[in-house]
């Protein structure tokens, strides 16, 4: 059987690393991934929230945060977000 990795296995391998979370709307988060559940609700540490507005990017620093998985669109492992990209 061809070696296959499930999507959530990839995320599981990101625990302890920086991750970039892109939401369905104009909002993004970066942080250190501490854990997640089957709904892809995520616990992040040393978080920066980015609100992308027509005027530019507004960032907010957050401590340990539980992010609702409901509005998550994409996850970029190992990335420190829009400022790095």
């Amino acid at each position: 059987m061809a070696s296959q990795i499930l999507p959530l296995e990839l995320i599981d391998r990101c625990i302890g690393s920086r991750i970039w979370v892109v939401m369905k709307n104009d909002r993004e988060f970066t942080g250190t991934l501490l854990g997640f559940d089957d709904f892809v609700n995520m616990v992040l540490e040393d978080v920066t929230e980015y609100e992308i507005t027509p005027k530019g990017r507004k960032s907010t620093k957050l401590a340990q945060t539980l992010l609702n998985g409901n509005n998550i669109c994409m996850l970029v492992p190992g990335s420190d977000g829009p400022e790095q990209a």
Partner: protein
Amino acid sequence: MDDSPPPPEATPPPPPPVTSGSPTDFLKNVVGKRVVVRLTSGVDYRGVLSCLDGYMNIALEQTEEHVNGTVTNRYGDAFIRGNNVLYISAAEPL
């Protein structure tokens, strides 16, 4: 996986670290603490987390409603319906 032998002795598992891991662990640690709850609309609620359930319905005490950085309301207690919640963030060290 074949039959693995039982662990050599019945030592209890080590207690989990105080700040770790899964959403459930986070919520155990954060109940009773000051938190920021941000809704998808961008409105923030700052208060003491009394409890929550599996839908992320939340009960907050000493709640302040913040819109664009200004306090727009205060509630002794507030029930927030979970579908509106974007995140719950610790506002004091865990």
